[in-house]
């Protein structure tokens, strides 16, 4: 996909990138609706925890394509805003929604989550959770393709704990100083 976007001479995007670079002291701001990518089947993580203890369930990472031409730009700040519903069916404990971002699929869940938000669950019910995280100068976001992984980490005190974490919103705001060459 990366090769197609760049190699094909995508007029609009490259022109926009060029104009962005032309804006002198101006910044390039990416407002990415990650949730729109997750909606294709990766916005929900089901968690069946049969015994006392802590376990995690994850979905396969989802690829999110950004724009090309910003590989050498300087990332200023990254703000991640997420919201989810914990829809618990049985059991009690705590459920934590964890968001992972990586440059490749295989390593998505091997790092540290960039956003965590959680809450206690006790029997059937829905709990809304949310959180905001800010990263400074993270060059990960120079990549044109990012992989997003959503994980539910559950600590069961009264098993079985079953239910799902359903993402309701996930946005990424990347502010960078564009540099094309």
């Amino acid at each position, binding site marked *: 996909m990366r090769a197609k976007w760049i190699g094909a*001479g995508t*007029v609009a995007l490259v022109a926009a990138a060029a104009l962005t*670079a*032309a804006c002198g002291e101006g*910044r390039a701001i990416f407002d990415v609706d990650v949730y729109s990518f997750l909606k294709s089947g990766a916005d929900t993580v089901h968690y069946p925890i049969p015994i006392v203890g802590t376990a995690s369930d994850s979905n396969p990472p989802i690829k999110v394509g950004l724009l090309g031409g910003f590989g050498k730009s300087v990332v200023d700040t990254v703000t991640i805003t997420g919201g989810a519903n914990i829809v618990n069916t049985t059991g009690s404990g705590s459920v934590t929604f964890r968001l992972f971002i990586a440059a490749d699929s295989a390593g998505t869940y091997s790092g540290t989550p960039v956003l965590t938000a959680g809450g206690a669950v006790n029997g059937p019910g829905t709990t809304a959770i949310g959180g905001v995280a800010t990263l400074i100068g993270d060059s990960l976001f120079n990549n044109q393709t990012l992989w997003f992984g959503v994980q539910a980490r559950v600590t069961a005190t009264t098993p079985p704990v079953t239910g799902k974490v359903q993402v309701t919103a996930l946005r990424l705001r990347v502010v960078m100083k564009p540099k*094309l060459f």
Partner: protein
Amino acid sequence: MRSTLVGCWVVVLLVGAAEPARAQFSFDARRAGMGGVSLTRDGTLRRYNPAYRAVPDHRGGGRAKLTIPIPLGLLQALKDSAAFDVHASYFNAVELVNKVLNPPLYLEVKKAPIPSNDVTFTVGRNALVVDLGKAQQLVPTDEIGFGSSSRFLDLGITIHGVHAGVLAFLQEDVGFTLGDTLRDFLRKADSARVRTLYFVNVDGKGQGGFAPTLSYAGRLAGGAPDSDDGFYVGGALHYYFGVAYGRGTGTTGFRTGDTLFAGSNPITPNVDALVYTSNSIGKQFGHGVGGDIGFAYVAGPVELGVGVNDLGATLTWKDTQVRRLVYDTATSSIKDSTVLNHVQSKTKLPASYVANVAYRMGQGITLGADIVDNGRGTAEHVGAEVRFGPLAVRGGVARDTRKKVEFGTGAGLRFGPFGLDVGFWTHSNSLSNARGVTMGTSLSIY
């Protein structure tokens, strides 16, 4: 690869965006101070009006034998050169392009403001909005392009007003027009849509050759032998031999797929162009006939003239090839196929003209105006000069080829055969909607 492509588009889209205003540039500070008008019978008049080849220089002097620009702007450009390090974080492509559009020979006393706003990209699985902010004004709504028609060589002999010789000509013209979808995407921050073609129309042409020429310029009536007064006519007949020509016209861009960012086939490149080229370059010439015509009338303080070049200059190329370039999605490459070969095609040299009027009111006051079309747009200039002994004060107004009004003012000092002039003029030769102001300085030898 990435840098190269981006760099190419920087050049193509940004350089082209403001090119048509180049006609404002002059090496003569006197002319700049009068908004671009010339009150002397200089090269522009003689280039476009064949009658002026017979009109002697004005007896009151005023036409310099040599004008040397004083390049104060080069010092400024050298001082600012660090700003053009493309690897530096503060590099600004617009500023670099502005230097190309407005060569830094003269001092830029007021730079046109450059947009320096944030640009926001809103990205979703099926959404892409690019909000360029104030930089949206840099996205052209009309055709952008560049071109010229020049006679870079004119050799021959002149006897009693009859000139026989040969001239060499070169004409090039390249234009880009953003398609509606691409223009709205960049200029109005419209969201990109699925299954939509985003494209640029491209049309470029270049041709060159030589033309044996027979011309006449002379005074038909009026005026004493020692006077400039009279009615002058001039005409030239050219037989054009085209050495080579090429033309390309078509569209280039891309078509979005079923989804913008998550589909298996997010975009498909789109190239569809016809390319015309003359076969047997240098062996088989294009042929055509054209002419220049003009007149000039000088009556005491009043002078006016009209001249047209390359009237009816159509070249017929008997042996041309027509190829079609199409992007093949199956092989992800551009397919080049011959559509027609050894066919005849025709090209035109654009007609260019000048119309001028000058009025020497006495007491050192001279008024002048002209309209010049060099084949790529019309520019109008009106200006005046008032002399107080060795001091000259000047002012003028112009409408450039982009229909923007510009202003000029200046002054000069002349001591015997030497003159020092300074001229300020506004210009729109920048990627900005606001004007810049340039100060030109030149030394003239009379």
